[in-house]
């Protein structure tokens, strides 16, 4: 057994060792990165199907027109002009984008504006646009911002290991993919399904009734504290610090409108909004979630002007979970566009309980093992020779070890579809090994090296063609798929490649040394 002759076996051993290293070494893949955590004795990462958690995949709501000619107008004015022409959208829903090297675009992220309406609005406002570019969806920047804000939200909400990413299909559709391990669907949906724009208005009496004015928006806050459970009759709240640049003006407004009147204000907005003192309204996504007055202490600080020196403030809410939501929304920011979820939406979502994931993991392992045993039994019965059949089973399994090592090395999360891919690989692998074995052992003994080589090469022609067809058959799924079968396709293709380039030639060598050494 010379080294030169058996280099294929040697190469396989080296690759197997490298795979085992990737699988078991604590130095690989152990980083506490995003996504699914490595657990158990191996470095394998498990996808949500096998570890439990929630996955949401949805496009963003909006319509976009490209190649819009602003005619020298500044974006804010364009937004204003377009919003005025739209019945179902406000200025906040319209974004005009200009680019250095590309034509400008206008997008509307309100849910109920059609491409037709956007086109009409642009025409009515006097901006020309490329009518062929009118489409559902939003601009790339908006998608990126959304991904950023959603990641922030998930981090702020303390959902460990959650990831948000943008994926696109071959047909040019874009989706946002959110994966959160161990968390149930309802909780994640509540978190990501609202835009989360938070503002504070004052609601104050004037001569002819009540008026409402926005006084604080997200960018006016210097820092945002964590939600507090209210103590001693206090409501749950979020302590905040206002930016120094905004504080004097806010102070002035609150004093002028009567919120900070002598002795503080009593807010009865919820019960009788037409006879209450001046109130501050906490508004989330356009809805008033709470209304509150001001204590006499704070009011006097404002009246004397001391407050603006140390502008601390408390946003009160009705309950603690609301306080937590407000804090998350303020810190993460508002979503530039909404996810198209829920009945009638285009999104999909799935949830697997951690217990179910755990049993899927165990059960699919058992399924795989039993399938391998079935293959082994048939091969043993067919050949009757342990020295032909045993290396066959071992070689086929080594393909799976290499693939597992690869998955651990790059941190690819294992899902049921990947496991189906492993089983497919064992199937095609054993098929090819049977071809090699039959070919090599055909018509009498393999006496010389040359006879072996020529037979092996013949066998390899069939294997090569079969591998090429399998790779072509799987490639659309590997490239096009929206994720559910991508793992299956990728690992089947990889397995076929590993098999043809590495393990199946090595099996030929093993068989030769067993056959020719007689």
């Amino acid at each position, binding site marked *: 057994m010379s080294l030169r002759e058996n280099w294929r076996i040697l190469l396989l051993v080296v690759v197997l060792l490298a795979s085992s290293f990737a699988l078991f070494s604590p130095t690989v893949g152990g980083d506490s990165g995003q996504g699914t955590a490595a657990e158990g004795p191996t470095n394998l990462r498990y996808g949500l199907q096998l570890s439990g958690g929630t996955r949401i995949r949805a496009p963003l709501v909006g319509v976009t027109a490209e190649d819009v000619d602003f005619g020298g107008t500044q974006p804010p004015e364009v937004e204003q002009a377009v919003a005025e022409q739209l019945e179902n959208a406000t200025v906040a829903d319209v974004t005009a984008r200009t680019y250095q090297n590309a034509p400008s675009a206008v997008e509307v992220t309100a849910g109920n504006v059609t491409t037709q309406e956007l086109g009409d609005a642009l025409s009515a406002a006097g901006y020309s646009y490329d009518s062929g570019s009118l489409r559902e969806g939003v601009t790339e920047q908006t998608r990126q911002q959304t991904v950023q804000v959603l990641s922030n939200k998930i981090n702020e909400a303390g959902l460990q290991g959650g990831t948000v990413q943008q994926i696109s299909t071959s047909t040019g559709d874009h989706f946002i993919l959110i994966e959160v391990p161990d968390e149930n*669907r309802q909780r994640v949906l509540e978190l990501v399904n609202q835009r989360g724009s938070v503002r504070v208005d004052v609601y104050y009496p004037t001569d002819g009734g009540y008026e409402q004015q926005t006084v604080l928006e997200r960018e006016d806050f210097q820092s945002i504290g964590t939600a507090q459970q209210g103590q001693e009759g206090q409501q749950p709240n979020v302590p905040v610090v206002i930016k120094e640049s905004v504080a004097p003006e806010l102070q002035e407004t609150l004093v002028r409108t009567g919120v900070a009147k002598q002795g503080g204000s009593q807010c009865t907005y919820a019960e009788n909004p037409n006879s209450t003192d001046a109130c501050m309204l906490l508004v989330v996504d356009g809805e008033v979630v709470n209304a509150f007055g001001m204590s006499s202490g704070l009011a006097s600080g404002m009246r004397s002007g001391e407050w603006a020196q140390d502008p601390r403030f408390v946003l009160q809410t009705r309950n603690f979970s609301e306080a937590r939501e407000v804090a998350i929304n303020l810190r993460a920011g508002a979503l530039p566009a909404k996810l198209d979820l829920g009945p009638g939406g285009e999104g999909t979502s799935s949830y697997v309980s951690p217990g179910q994931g755990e049993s899927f993991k165990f*059960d699919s392992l058992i399924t795989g093992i039993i399938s391998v045993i*079935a293959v082994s039994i*048939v091969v043993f019965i*067919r050949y009757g020779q342990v020295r032909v059949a045993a290396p066959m089973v071992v070689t086929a399994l080594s393909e799976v070890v290499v693939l597992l090592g690869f998955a651990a090395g790059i941190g690819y999360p294992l899902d049921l579809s990947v496991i189906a891919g492993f089983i497919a690989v064992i199937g095609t692998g054993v*098929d090819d090994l049977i071809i090699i074995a039959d070919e090599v052992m055909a018509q009498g003994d393999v006496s010389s090296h040359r006879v072996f080589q020529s037979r092996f090469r013949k066998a390899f022609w069939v294997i090569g063609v079969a591998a090429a067809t399998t790779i072509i058959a799987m490639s659309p799924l590997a490239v096009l798929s929206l994720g559910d079968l991508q793992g*299956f396709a990728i690992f089947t293709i990889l397995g076929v490649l590993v098999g043809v380039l590495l393990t199946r030639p090595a099996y030929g060598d093993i068989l030769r040394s067993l056959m020719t050494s007689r």
Partner: protein
Amino acid sequence: MVAFEVPEIDYSRYTNRQLAAVPLAVLAVALVVVGGWYVATGAPVQPGVDFTGGAELRVAVDAPDGQAREQIRSAFSPTPETIRSVPSDNTYILTFQTDGGNVDLGALEQQARDAGFQVESSYEVSASFGAQTQRLAFGGVVFAFLGMSLVVFGMFRTFVPSVAVVISAFSDIVIPVALMNVFGIELSLGTVAALLMIIGYSVDSDILLNNHILRRSGGFYESVYRAMRTGVTMTLTSLSAMIVMTIVATLFGIQLLASIGTVLVFGLAADLMNTYMLNLSLLRWYKYEGVKR
């Protein structure tokens, strides 16, 4: 250990017409089933939740089977389209496909909790997303089939043997699809994966047969027998693995693996017939008559 041998079949007793008649008749029946299904329902096979949109819920119910089903039926509105029990862990897999596929999964989860069931997993696909997946899956299968045909033609560079492989592969796909209709198996992502795998598996034995007959020395029947020894072993090995996988995965309620297994069992069984009857008869005709012309 006792080695089993693939039995040698005396093909010379049958004419090409006789040999090809059986698989072609089966293919014709399969095409009628698939075509009839298409005319009746507008789809060649019943699409599942992945493609129509809808919801799927897996709930643990603490009650004996009959009662549990009754409880499930009364707990949900709309009532589930299908209820499947998973023997290994007392859970039930429910599917909901209503009104264009748009179901409120949140409401269903709430109904499950209200009825005291534990939600083990839930899954919702919107109708439009399902339609997109359907286009993708269809395109994928067509692309895979055309790609496979190109490789085969490129490798053999002769018409009849290449067409023999392609027709066999086509039949290997159509027969399982027809059987899915017969057995009421819905098209899911798993079954699409299985159909793609059939393309890969089925050409293995066809290419092997062609290769032995066209590119090797030795008589026709001798080549056939050698190819069959290898090819039948291959298919039987895969078949046994898939039968076992289907049974085990069904017991465990791992639907993806179970559906892949079921469809592959159909496909591999069809492949045995198509390779050694249809493909073989075409090759024999080509070898003895086609080449001379």
